[in-house]
């Protein structure tokens, strides 16, 4: 006699099981945070290539290198809003890019949720502090407010 295989429509206790609705119901978005961070890493990576490489070529390589960078050098450079914007973008993008990279590393290698949360919090607080300090300097720096350099 042929055996009929029927799809089970009852749960273990024999009560009818409603068909699960896979296509509707959950309000989770397609994409969301992980998508945007993934996209951000790619775009900021390209922008950082220009910003960081440009920074290195301008600040570190010409004759004298970092040795010629002093108060006067910075004051002259930051007289231009262009260089202030450049440095602020470098600061912001590098911090978010780097800290999201660290977040991804904790996702990969830190298995305990508590330890992962703690590690990420240290990164976020550190990053936020550096961002605030850097932003304050970029926005408020005014050479005339500083005592003259000998």
């Amino acid at each position: 006699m042929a055996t009929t295989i029927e799809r089970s429509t009852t749960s273990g206790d024999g009560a009818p099981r409603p068909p699960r609705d896979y296509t509707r119901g959950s309000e989770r978005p397609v994409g969301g945070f992980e998508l945007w961070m993934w996209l951000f890493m790619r775009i900021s990576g390209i922008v950082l290539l220009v910003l960081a490489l440009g920074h290195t070529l301008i600040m570190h390589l010409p004759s004298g290198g970092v040795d010629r960078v002093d108060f006067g050098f910075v004051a002259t450079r930051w007289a231009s809003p262009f260089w202030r914007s450049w440095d602020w973008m470098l600061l912001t993008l590098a911090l978010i890019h780097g800290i999201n990279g660290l977040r991804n590393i904790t996702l990969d290698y830190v298995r305990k949720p508590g330890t992962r949360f703690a590690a990420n919090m240290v990164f976020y607080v550190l990053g936020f502090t550096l961002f605030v300090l850097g932003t304050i300097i970029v926005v408020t720096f005014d050479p005339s407010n500083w005592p003259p350099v000998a």
Partner: protein
Amino acid sequence: MATPADVLQDSDARRAGGAAGAVTLTLRIRRFNPEISQDSWWDEFTVEADPLDRLVEVLHQVKWYHDGTLSFRRSCAHGICGSDAMLINGRNALACKVLVDDVGPRVTIEPIRGLAVLKDLIVDMDPFLEGYRTVLPFLINDSGEPDKERLQSAEERARFDDTTKCILCAACTTSCPIFWGDEGYIGPAAIVNAHRFIFDSRDEGSRERLKILSEKTGVFRCRTTFNCTDACPRGIQVTKAIQEVKRSILFDRF
């Protein structure tokens, strides 16, 4: 890089040329038996084999004539069931698709990585299959039963042809460094099987699958190392499939 097709062609050429006689093969196999020791150890076996023997036949020779306690999974032995994925000379492969001639006189065999070893070359596949189940790997279509087949054009079928080849051997997922670090990552094999339905014109569950794959354990953990593509014994372009899913999440939402 030799693709599986190249390897097969090489083997065919050698077969036509007639490989000469038996060769002596030294097998180093990583053993594990929790009833004996909590640590793994290495056993060495020296066996005679035909250069055109598949490695699974050499493992049978060891198990049947040298050491009956050697444990490994195999069912069809013809590269279809996906039971005998193992780490052969540092690369994931099916023991039934690798020839003695392909691996040289010394072969190192270990269990696939990233899954708990139960005994010798047998690993616990549950976390792997859990990832597979997560992506709803079945046809979802609420438009009602059709009178006949659900028709599809040749082009629509070709769209996901590559990912229909998966045999769930776990060679890709257990070659993935992200999966090694975190078995919560659903892994390349699950994404391949999601891809198979996401790009199927008859299926209506893509949105739900893309939501699942957008999560922290989903496709955006992929670092595009291509280990999965190299490891796939079916020649599936695994990394390409993962990138297509990412692209779909990025662009199909608009």
